[in-house]
């Protein structure tokens, strides 16, 4: 069942254009949003969160248009970005205590269990965290309010291999609970580990949006890994 629909998304900048981006996200599936730096992943995600205004296109969650229903929809989705530091000089405890007030569905037991898993100390400030720990703190906020869709922009960048592995396991656990996970990455091996579907974007255009298996059936040469396939496609697109 499709719970997110992105249709005909177009955003023009002086030096970059997002061209007619369309895809759907299914309930209880992990979708990897793959593409090189500057391919349009973050622009797409920002549009999906109404942080930027597309020149054209429509985005719906749970069949409801994002525009005009933003507050209601954001109760049911989570977003986390890489290493952006919110309120660098405030204690994590204070940031959390303010944030949780906005979410009637805030799950304190999930918060505590993820906090322990990520080894985050509440008395620290984001300024005292390493880049990887900042990613984990952003994820902690995103994971603690029982959202039905997790939208993550480069969540694994900056994480050590052990933490990345843990995170991908968390994605799998969430999927099993019916949560949809949509994460952008340029680390294709992350997709190989856990993604059900892949959306591949190159130079602002969606080149493929399908299951990982269909993608490999359609594009991979014999013996090629997913990473090798994407690298080859990207090279071909640039020549």
């Amino acid at each position, binding site marked *: 069942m499709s719970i997110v629909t992105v249709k005909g998304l177009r955003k023009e900048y002086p030096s970059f254009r997002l061209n007619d981006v369309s895809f759907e996200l299914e309930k209880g599936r992990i979708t990897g949003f793959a593409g090189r730096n500057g391919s349009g992943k973050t622009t797409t995600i920002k549009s999906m969160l109404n942080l930027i205004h597309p020149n054209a296109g429509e985005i719906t969650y749970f069949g409801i248009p994002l525009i005009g229903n933003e507050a209601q929809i954001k109760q049911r989705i989570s977003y986390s970005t890489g290493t952006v*530091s919110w309120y660098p000089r405030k204690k994590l405890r204070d940031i959390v205590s303010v944030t949780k007030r906005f979410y009637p569905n805030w799950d304190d037991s999930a918060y505590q269990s993820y906090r322990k898993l990520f080894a985050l100390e509440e008395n620290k400030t984001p300024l005292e965290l390493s880049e990887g720990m900042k990613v984990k703190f952003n994820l902690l906020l995103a994971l603690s309010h029982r959202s039905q869709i997790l939208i993550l922009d480069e969540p694994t960048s900056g994480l050590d291999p052990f933490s990345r592995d843990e995170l991908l396991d968390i994605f799998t656990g969430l999927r099993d609970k019916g949560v949809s996970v949509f994460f952008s990455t340029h680390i294709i091996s992350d997709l190989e580990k856990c993604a059900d579907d892949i959306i591949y974007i190159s130079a602002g255009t969606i080149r493929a949006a399908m299951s990982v298996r269909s993608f490999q059936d359609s594009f991979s040469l014999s013996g090629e890994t997913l990473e090798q396939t994407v690298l080859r496609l990207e090279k071909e697109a640039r020549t």
Partner: protein
Amino acid sequence: MKNILKKELTLSASVLSYLFIAFGLLFLVPGYPILCGVFFVTLGIFQSFQSAREANDVVFSALLPVAKKDIVKGKFLFSCFIELCAMLLMTGVTAVRMTLLKDAAVYKSNALMNANPFALGVAFFIFGLFNLLFIGGFFRTAYRFARPFVTHIIAAFLVIGAGETLHHIPGLESLNAFGFEHFSLQLLLLALGILSYLFLTALSYRGACRSFERIDL
């Protein structure tokens, strides 16, 4: 609304915004252009906008389950809260100066503006200008605040200059009257000041909501 104000007060605000409320006490200082205290209070609020920008506050807020206009509302609520706290302090100080200290020689020979309801009305007007020029200007981009603040500085000091000058013009001495002789006139001017504050703030809020809705974060 309560949640977004709580966020402003605890996460976004700089401690200087709270400390600078104390500049309302300048209304007690004789031989000093007391309306500068109002400007210093706005300088304190400016510090919160500066620290909030460094903390990525606007984007953080935009990701919360609130409408965009609620983010604007949060900033206005916070600023009005600080302004009204300062007004409360200045009103108390003015009352003390006009009653308990009414016979103090330093106030009777004060060459500059006296603390009276007219001065409070001008203070409201300056806060209204701040809300219009600075906060409204800030929300055109949600990150640039130098130009809006410089505009506010110019406007605020023009008003302070006018406030200090008016009572020297023949026929307008009553604006600066010390005591209760022209109290009803001064109360009327205070009411005008409050009305201008409400009007300028509402005007700025509506414009800021429109601008903020349009910009990309």
